[in-house]
Structures are given as C-alpha cells and as structure tokens.
C-alpha cells in the first residue's frame, strides 16, 4: 500500500464549541494522507465523532480550517463534498430496496441508468451481496445491512470514506469478521478512510495510524504498534490495552532513563517520556505481560518479591495479583504452565526490563 506524502485531508487549528463553556475540539491539527486508514479512537465525548462530523459537513468548525484535496471545505454543505459515509446503525433507507439504496447517490449525480446498473452490481459484488438487489434492508441480517451500507458509501467512487462506529451494533464474532473484511476492502481499492471507534482492538487491527482522542485533544497519533508499545501519555497507556499504573516520584534522571521511587520505597529504573525532572511525580506504566516471574526475574534490573494475593483464571491465561508500590497492586499475566506451581500466599519474585516500562505524565 502506498501512502503519498502530500496530505489529502488537513485540519488546521480547528476548534469546535457548542456553547461558550465547552470546547469539544481544541486546536486540532491533523493530516491524513491519501489512501491511508486513520482511526480516531477515544472515549465518548472525546471529540472524535465531532471531528468526523466536521469532515463530513454536518458540523461547521467554530474556528480553523479543514482542507480536502487542497481546497478549504469550510462552509461547503455535506452534499457537495463527495465524501462517502457509513453510519453506526447503517442508515439504510428502509423504504427502498438494496438496489434503490445504492442507486440513490448515482441518481443524485444524474448518472445514466445503464451505468447505474453496472456500478450497483459491481459494488454489491464487492461486498458479496449480488443476489440481494431486490431485498429491503429490513429483510437483511445486521452484517448484511452493514455490507450494503459499505457498498452504498463506495458506489459513487468517493476518494474519502468516513465511518462512524460502523460495527458498533454487531455481535462480537461478526464484528471480528467485518473488521478484517473492511481492512481487506480498503487494501484492495485504496480509498482514504477515516474511522471512528471507541473499541481499541478495532483500531489496532484495522488502522494504518491511530489518533487517540481525549477531552477534545489528540493525545497521541501513531501506528498501532507504536501506540501500544510506546504510549506517550498516561491516558494512552491506560486506554490502550491493559496497564499497571503505579504512582511514584522521579529521584534521578540519566539520559532517557530515570529512577522512579514508588510509595513503598521500591526504586524502578524506567524510560521517561518527554523529559522527566527529578522531584516530579509520575506514573509508572508497565504491561502485565511484560512482567516475568520466578528464576527469570532474578537477573532483571527491576526485580522485587511479594506474596501472591489472588490468582484469577482467565481461560487462555492466568493473572497473578501481588501487592506492590504502596497502596497499589500489580497484575501479572502468566501462562497456565508457569502459574501451575504458584498458590495464593506464596512468595514470588517478579521483575521487568527498564525498556518495558515508562514514567508518564
């Protein structure tokens, strides 16, 4: 997949407020390259949906500029933007057949009938629903409706497609399946996609890049692996995947590493995101799967001992809970094999490498 360097969509200093006291989007600057699959990820009310709505033309920025393919689109109504959109509850027109739904954008563009027919069949073929032209949306399953919505958003060849939690209404199994299907579709046709979700797995599976939103600001924007492995803020660390978060104070800074002293006096060597200063309070972030237990922990720069407080069975793995860092607890992810010998109350040694943890603001 080729990503052109020239940004296809640009948000320049965009603000959005609904009333004087609540700024929903704060000074947003964001570039999307042509052909990219960008996911806006965040909790509800974080400004991700508003950002999408501004791009679609259903909301106007209070200030700032949105540029699409080199042209400022502020003030251009939604129906003149030529941007495809897939909605959470599909928004298929219930009084039209699948074929009529797909014909709708083509008729609006005054396309000849014959050409409409070929386009509709092509689009339905793409989502493997060629036999459903004459069905009504009400006669289709959720997954099928979702595919029709996808086909409808793509049938008029938009260069940009927006998706607003399109898989939100599906059950888990179907969702997992559709994630891959959408990803493959994107790879095949190379359309630029801006995708909104609050589901981190969805974001990690499908995207070229993920922008994590919180309180109207982008916290971090990067490739999924980067977001997962190198969160730059405490919010990203706790929002993406599972993380142990322990409060501590920076006692010493040595290059990119610093020494963090936790509430119980344990010292932890850690990577420090954006330049920690000695004396500052920071949160230690370490993933449960990064923690090793038993003999392997002994040689690690960070290693400690504590009694197991609880063992939780989670199907494919087991979680140990040990008291650590003062009032806090540490969750450790273990395979069944490794956990077999451990019982509640046993004293265990555990540890991790300094590059597996971070002192975050």
């Amino acid at each position: 997949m080729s990503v052109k360097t020239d940004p296809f969509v640009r948000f320049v200093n965009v603000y959005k407020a609904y009333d004087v006291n609540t700024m929903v989007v704060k000074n947003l600057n964001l570039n999307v390259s042509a052909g990219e699959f960008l996911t806006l990820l965040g909790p509800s009310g974080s400004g991700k949906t508003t950002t999408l709505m501004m791009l679609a033309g259903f909301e106007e920025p209070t200030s700032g500029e949105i540029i699409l393919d080199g042209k400022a689109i502020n003030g251009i109504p939604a129906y003149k933007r030529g941007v495809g959109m897939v909605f959470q509850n599909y928004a298929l027109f219930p009084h039209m057949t699948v074929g009529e739904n797909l014909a709708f954008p083509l008729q609006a563009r005054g396309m000849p009938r014959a050409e409409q027919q070929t386009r509709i069949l092509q689009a339905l073929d793409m989502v493997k629903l060629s036999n459903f032209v004459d069905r009504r949306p009400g006669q289709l399953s959720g997954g099928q409706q979702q595919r029709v919505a996808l086909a409808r958003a793509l049938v008029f060849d938009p260069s940009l497609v927006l998706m607003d939690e399109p898989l939100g209404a599906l059950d888990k199994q179907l969702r997992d399946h559709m994630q891959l299907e959408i990803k493959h579709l994107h790879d095949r046709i190379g359309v630029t996609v801006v995708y909104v979700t609050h589901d981190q797995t969805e974001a990690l599976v499908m995207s070229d890049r993920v922008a994590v939103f919180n309180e109207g600001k982008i916290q971090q924007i990067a490739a999924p692996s980067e977001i997962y492995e190198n969160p730059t803020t405490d919010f990203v660390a706790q929002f993406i995947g599972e993380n142990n978060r322990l409060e501590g104070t920076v006692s010493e800074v040595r290059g990119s590493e610093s020494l963090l002293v936790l509430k119980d006096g344990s010292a932890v060597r850690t990577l420090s995101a954006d330049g920690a200063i000695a004396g500052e309070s920071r949160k230690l972030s370490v993933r449960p799967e990064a923690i090793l237990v038993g003999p392997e922990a002994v040689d690690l720069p960070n290693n400690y001992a504590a009694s197991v407080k609880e063992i939780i069975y989670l199907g494919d793995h087991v979680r140990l809970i040990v008291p650590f860092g003062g009032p806090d607890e540490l969750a450790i992810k273990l395979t069944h094999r490794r956990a077999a010998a451990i019982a509640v109350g046993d004293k265990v040694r555990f540890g991790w490498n300094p590059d597996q943890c971070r002192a975050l603001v």
Partner: protein
Amino acid sequence: MSTIEIGHDVGAATLDKRRLERSLQKAGRHQRLISVSLVAPLAAFTFVFFVIPIFAFFTFSVANTEVPRGLPLTSEAIKEWSGEGRPPQPVMEALTQDLQNTYNRTAVIGAARRLNYDIAGFHGLITKTITNLSEPITQPDVSSENTDVPDGFSIFGTSETTTTPTQTLPKDAGERLVSIDSRWGEPRYWQAIERGTWTITPIYLLTALDLRIGDDGSIESVSPDHRIYQALILRTFGVSAAVTMIAVILGFPLALFIKRQPANRASLIMFLVLVPLWTSILVRTTAWLVLLQGEGLLNDLIQWLHLSDTPIALIHNRIGVLVAMVHICLPFMILPLYSVMRSIPPTYTRAAASLGASPARVFFKVYLPLVFPGLSAGALLVFIMCLGFYVTPALVGGPRDQMLSYFIAMAVNRDLNWGLASSLSIVLILIVAIALLLLKRFSASALAK
C-alpha cells in the same frame, strides 16, 4: 509526516471568549432561521385566527364603553359628583340632554341595557324617562308601575309606561327627572351611571360568579333566587367529574381485557373502540335519541320485559346526558390506559407474585401504581373534554342539564350580552387550565418512568 500540536501555540489560534461567542451565534443563526421559518406560518396562523379572537373576546369581560358612548355629557359631568346624596344640577341637566338627543338613540339604548346589568330595571327607567322627556308638558302618573327587567341574562323584558297628561313638568332638570320617576332621586342609580364611566368594569365577572356591587359599593352575593352561575359552574364540574368517573370504571376493565387478548384480537377490539371515536358526535347523539326517547327502543324493551308499565324518562334529563357523554368520552379513556398497560412488562407483577404477594395485593400494590399515569392522563383528558361539551347536553339534556358552554352560546346568541359570555368563558378556561396543569404534571411523571 503529521504535525500534532497539543494546545501550546497560544499565538496561533486560541479563541478568546468574545470571538467564540460571536462565531457561535453566527453558526446557530442560519440553522435557527430554517427552524423558525418552518414554524412561523402555523404560529402566525394560530396567533391571528385563534389567539387574537379569543383574547379580543376576553376583553369584553371588562369592557365598559356603552355608558360614555350613550350618555357622553352625563359621563363628563358626573366626574364632579362626590358620590354622596343627589348629584348636582349640571349632572341632571347633562342626563336630560343626553336622553333627548335623538341622533344618538341606539347608543342610549345600549347604555340603558348596560346599566340594566348593574341594577335591574334601569333599562325600563331610561326608556320611560326618554318617553316622558319627549313630551314636555306631561307628567307620569305617580303610581306608574315599574316593570323591572328581570335580573340575569334576559334583557328583553319591555317596560311599559303609562303617562297621563295632567301636569307640566318642573323647569328644574333634577326636579323634572324625579317627577318622571322617583328612582332618579336615589343615589344608587347615579352611582351605577358613575360606575358605567369607569375604564373597565367588574360587573360581568362578578355576575358570572353570582356577585354584584352593592349599594354601599362593596361586593356582595346576589339574592338567592337570582343565583344561577355558581350552580352552573358546579354542575359543569359535577357532570364532568361524574362522566370521568364512569369512564374510568367502565374503561379500566375493557383496557385490561384488551391487553390480555392475543395481538390480533386485541387490534380488532381496538378497532371497535375506535369506530365510535371516529363517528360524528351528532350521529352518535342522534342514535342515543332514538334509543332513549319515550317511545324509543330502550323503553320498548323495558315495557316488553314488564319492568315498568309507563315509559321511563331517559332523555332530556341527566341520565341521557351522562349516557351520551360517557359514550363519547370512553375511547379517550381507553386509549391512554391501554397504551400504558401494554408498556408494563409482566416481569414486575411476576416478581411481586414470586415474592409471595397475593393476586389482590399484586394488583393494588404493584399493578395499579404502574398504571396510574395512564389512568390519570386519560381521566384528565376526559375531564377537560367534558368541561367544554355543548352539542350533547343541548340535544339530549333538559334545561337543567346545560353546562357552561351552553350559557356562553346563549349569552351571545340570544341576549347579546358579550360581557357575560366573555366572563363565563374565562371561568371555563380557568377550570380547563387548572386541569391541564394537573395533566401536565401527571404526564410528566408518566414520561419520567
């Protein structure tokens, strides 16, 4: 690849509050303009053809223009009067001139009718005085009868004056008036004229509540045999309440029954409930006339069953009114009740039963409170409808079964007493408004569920 700044560039594009406010207003304005222009036609239509007529009509309840129009000189002169004893000479002369002004006769009669609402008999007094003044050399028989126009709304009682041309009238205007009719010597008649010059008058509103301004200027009840409206208001209230109660008693089991039927049968029964709702009130009332009248079907049935040998009066009395009104209102009771009953999941009553409550207890402690919002909404809806009923009582009721609406129509159509019609309307609207406030509260709590 991409630039992300997280709010640090203060110089570039932070928004100060005032600029933000301005741009927010601008953003909302266009959208609001669309909404306003969609609503404006109906809002303007309703305002011009509904709100204005009703409010213009309401102003009649205090309007007081007849006396200054009919008796302009007297109205001006009486301002100088203290209100005690007989008015001074100029007032008397002014009245004499006003009454002799033949070009203004219609307005004078209007003023006379207006004054009659204040003191019964004033209309007769003025017509008699006009007649006598037009014949300057005559004087009425001292014992001439005073045919008072009866109190209330009937103002067409004519007063006949017998005059005997025996004596010449005194030159002095005051003496002359008193010699025509001794009532001109009583301050209360002049006080009534003085009240007639006020910008607004309370007499219609007082009349609608069976009150009047007494001779000493204070508000008092009218004599018991002239009391009409308090009883009328109570009757309107009572009939509406009775209809509502019967509708609740009859509607509740039917709604419950419909809810317990399978879906297909339930919608068929609902259709049967809706058929009368959609049938003209006139048609239904006609049908009840046929059924209930003396030689009507129900009486035939009663006599055939030998329950009674003589026809029972079922129509043109309270029974007929109640039967026909309940029939009209029942669907409005059943609809909200049924929709609330349908929205109650059976889990609640099952839960209560599983906790060991007896069926009666489940019904009264769990089901009834859950249904109450629908019950109260339906009841208040029916009650409000009943308050305004006109056609049904007019057709199947007797003279003693008429409600406020009937008297409003009669005040305007028969008596041309717009002030009273307006006052009675205000009373009716107030009762409706109170019921509406209750309805709003109940439906709000129903929605909150």
